[in-house]
């Protein structure tokens, strides 16, 4: 990947602190990053390393304690609901748990309709909306006619997560934050979901920030890898560089934790170092 590409999301000194006094917890500690458009970035770290907090801050769902986030070269402004809505047209997310991503009381059609409305399609005729929804569903290999008028609990986890991708397909954001989108799904659906994400990326040329704790998966999909430990980026760079020639101890430990099929799992090595 050339570094000539424009920077679409960057941050300087981003910090998030929960609580104060003796209960003070620094979830994200003064980090800098530069994500370029079109690339696929992975953020790898163990549970509790601050990945999800970082995602929430990038999305603007949680306030930033300190530091600045720049979106498309400008300092991001999400002070009002209107500005937030504008921001979210450019940055969207897929969450870890598809089962809790849906409002169990509304039909799944409303999820897709909301996306069309957000893209300014509120006044479109019904047939047009149905056509768009059908197209989005067929992109993720779902039959819209089987999906319509159903409640989320009638779908499987894989179907739910694919529908989330259909949602992104309709929204066509510049940046997608995928927070461990495959961790709650069985292994067979996992590859399909990943393929769809990559296909979608090529289709609408968006940037994906992929959050995972699985080093192998990160290496498989990403261009750039950021390693996060206790709220800090300990290492980042080209995926090949980081994985094949790790510098930080933490990266080495993460790499050793990747299970290998033809080797017995060495617990001493994967234990606390």
């Amino acid at each position: 990947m050339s570094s000539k590409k424009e920077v679409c999301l960057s941050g300087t000194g981003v910090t998030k602190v929960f609580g104060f006094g003796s209960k003070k917890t620094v979830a994200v500690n003064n980090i800098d990053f530069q994500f370029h458009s079109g690339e696929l970035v992975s953020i790898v770290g163990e549970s509790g390393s601050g990945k999800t907090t970082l995602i929430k801050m990038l999305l603007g769902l949680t306030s930033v304690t300190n530091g600045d986030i720049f979106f498309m070269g400008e300092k991001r402004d999400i002070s009002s609901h209107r500005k937030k809505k504008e921001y979210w047209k450019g940055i969207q997310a897929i969450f870890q748990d598809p089962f809790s991503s849906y409002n169990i009381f509304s039909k799944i059609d409303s999820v897709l309709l909301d996306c069309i409305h957000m893209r300014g399609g509120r006044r479109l005729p019904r047939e047009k909306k149905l056509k768009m929804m059908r197209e989005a569903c067929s992109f993720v290999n779902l039959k819209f006619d089987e999906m319509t008028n159903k409640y989320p609990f009638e779908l499987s986890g894989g179907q739910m997560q694919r529908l989330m991708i259909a949602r992104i397909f309709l929204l066509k954001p510049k940046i997608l934050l995928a927070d461990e989108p495959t961790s709650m799904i069985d292994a067979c659906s996992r590859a399909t979901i990943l393929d769809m994400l990559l296909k979608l990326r090529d289709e609408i040329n968006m940037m994906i920030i992929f959050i995972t704790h699985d080093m192998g998966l990160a290496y498989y999909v990403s261009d750039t890898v950021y390693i996060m430990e206790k709220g800090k980026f300990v290492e980042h760079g080209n995926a090949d560089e980081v994985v094949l020639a790790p510098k930080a101890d933490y990266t080495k430990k993460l790499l050793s934790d990747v299970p290998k099929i033809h080797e017995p799992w060495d617990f001493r090595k994967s234990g606390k170092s």
Partner: protein
Amino acid sequence: MRNQFRQLIRSGKFMTGFIIFNALVLLTIFYPIFNPGNPLAMIGFDSFIPPGTYFSLYDSVNPNIHVYTLRIPGADEARIQSLLPMDEREAMGEWLIREGVPKEQINIEDFTGLLELWFAHYNPDIRIDGMTIADRRFYQRLNAKVEGIFDIVDIHLYTYNNETEEYEFQAAISSEDYIRLRDVVNIVRLPLGTDNFGMDMMRKLVSAIGTSLLIGLIAGSIATVIGLILGLVAGYVGGIIDEIIMFFSNLFTVIPGFVLLILISYSIGQAGRSVTVIGIVIGLTAWVWTTRSVRSQVLSLRHRDHVSLSKLSGHSMPRIIIKDILPYIASYVVMAFILQISTAILAEAGLSMLGLGPRTTDVATLGLMMNWAMVYSAHLTGAWWAYYPVLLVIALISFSLNLMNTGLDQVFNPQLRN
């Protein structure tokens, strides 16, 4: 949703509470239809008339009522026995013991045996040591009564003629004359007697259940609406607004609600205390717990993925609260509402017991009935019908509502579901 509804119907606790509660509600609807009349009409001139069926003595000697002659075995005996009440029999027994009759022989339950002993031993001339003259006179009168007890004579009826200013013979009533109760024009059934004002307790109780439920409904709705709105706003918006709302809810938690209720009711004054006002006052002091529990539920909901996703879809805050948060806590709010009704009814009863409830002249409430029963010492005079039914109804309302709440909890709370 349908599945949970089915579970509710199968839940024994919920259905028991539901049936009891609805029986009470139906009673307040249908009893006044079949027994119309003002519940606050003072029909009795005596206070605390015991429960029973009363028929007009005047109408029962009406010459137009057909008189049937019935020979009922044991009728005379029952009549004679009723003429000698228990306290007089005890007095007879006491005299006999003092006279020297062994205690074992005397059984005041055995009417004929007692009379035999009495006729064998009583002598008005005997002076027993330590007996006052008044006592001796009492026993002499009692003896006269006992001796005359077997003389069954007809009762003769005379009416006063205003023109001739003389009494004219009308009829003789023999001990074997019977009339049909249906033929008596004026019969009053008082299933629960009357209270100290002479008001029909049953009619008043039914009306009081209605009033108390209304107060519960008003207070419960107000408390739930305020609690829900404040809880949703505090939990979802957070920050300084949360701090302010929690400050006030802490303030109301620290001051005991009942004390606040007493002070407010007192300052409103007797003239201003209507059912609605009391309901509103109770509602305004009871929202705290709903606020706190709704807030804590919302706090755990607002960081869920579906709320984040709804935000990312550009929905406004009111829409997220109504569509993505409210449905998740709806069952919880219904439960809180039921408990609020129950608490409000108990609060009204407590307030009225202290004489700070609605005006007595306007309405009957369960608390006011308890208050008047207490003021007129019903518990000391043995007028159980003036307070036991009220207590039972208060307990039943509270019990049924709590049972419904527990049943709902078991259906909607996944941790309790088995």
